[in-house]
């Protein structure tokens, strides 16, 4: 299927970044949120991203205007009437997402695809909220979406091959790299990242070697662009702990992170955003 017009549902940072990526590929995009305030913030965020490109000489002000002319900010479902792909990026909560999927199922044309940017929830459960389970899939961007090239295209039990093919093509059209993934807790990237992070946390607990020495050894050996403790702080230790618990429940003790993560989160030290996590900031 050819994707002529798209929508991003939910205009938080992730939704705004996704809409920016789509607009930058010259594809019309409707940005829908229930809150006018959230839409204003998204507009300002997208303006910043464009301005950075102009300041670096990567885009002309005319180009920016052309891209912006392709973006529609709205709170109304009426603007979804001729959309052929909607990407949902609302908060990571099954009840909220299912309500959005039910609403989209009513508002979108019958053949439109509904994709979720979820990093953890079941695609099949989301698809069940609609009457078009064959046209529902995961379309998982990585943070920040305007820089990271990967998209995990995730199939639920009823997702059709045509839907997956369309989404892979669309990912390439917006200059991303698609990989096809069958639904499972953590999908590919987060599952592998958390497995290695849990192992390094256990190593640290056994040896009591300082976090910084461990991070340095891993980057010095060229194994990863940043060490697991820097990464955890950036991700948010509350988020990391939640993911570790979900994956431990799904796969077993190899995702058990050891006591440090739980202790830090318990003390309110959740990483970069709170000024302290494994490291202290400012």
């Amino acid at each position: 299927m050819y994707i002529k017009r798209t929508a991003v549902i939910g205009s938080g940072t992730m939704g705004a970044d996704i809409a920016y990526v789509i607009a930058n590929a010259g594809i019309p995009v409707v940005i829908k949120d229930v809150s006018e305030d959230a839409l204003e913030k998204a507009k300002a965020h997208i303006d910043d991203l464009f301005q950075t490109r102009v300041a670096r000489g990567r885009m002309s002000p005319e180009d920016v205007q052309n891209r912006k002319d392709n973006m529609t900010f709205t709170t109304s479902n009426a603007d979804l009437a001729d959309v052929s792909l909607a990407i949902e990026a609302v908060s990571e909560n099954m009840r909220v997402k299912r309500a959005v999927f039910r609403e989209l199922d009513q508002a979108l044309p019958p053949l439109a695809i509904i994709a979720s940017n979820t990093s953890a929830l079941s695609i099949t459960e989301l698809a069940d909220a609609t009457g078009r389970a064959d046209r529902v899939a995961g379309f998982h961007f990585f943070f920040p979406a305007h820089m990271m090239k990967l998209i995990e295209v995730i199939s639920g039990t009823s997702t059709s091959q045509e839907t997956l093919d369309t989404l892979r093509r669309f990912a390439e059209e917006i200059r991303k790299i698609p990989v096809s993934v069958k639904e499972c807790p953590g999908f590919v990237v987060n599952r592998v990242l958390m497995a290695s992070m849990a192992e390094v946390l256990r190593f640290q607990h056994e040896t009591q070697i300082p976090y910084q020495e461990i991070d340095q050894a891993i980057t010095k050996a060229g194994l990863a662009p940043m060490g697991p403790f820097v990464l955890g702080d950036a991700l948010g230790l509350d988020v990391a702990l939640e993911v570790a618990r979900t994956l431990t429940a799904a796969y077993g003790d190899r995702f058990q992170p050891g006591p440090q993560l739980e202790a830090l989160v318990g003390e309110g030290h959740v990483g970069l955003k709170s000024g302290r996590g494994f490291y202290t900031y400012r």
Partner: protein
Amino acid sequence: MDEAQEQRLILRFSLATFLESVRLFEEDIASAEEIDIAMRAGAGLPKGPLRWADERGLDQVLQDLESLHASVGERFAPPASLRDRVARGQLGVKSGIGYLTYAQ
């Protein structure tokens, strides 16, 4: 951290990364090629985990895992797909095939 500890850290990190990637492959969640692409493009790893193992040599990786399995625990048990490949002489880059295939 002394040299031996550092080597051990690097091995545990690399093998935990490799093992989870192999599980995804064995569960048919994604292809070997796409698992490597995902970890490079989505996590910034300089080398895909399956390619890493193929370059190290799957016979060597099997030895590494057997030793960690004995000293650290069950989570480092060598996966079936690794034993199979080593038994068939598919040792990675040096034999032209491992988890991925290589032009000779």
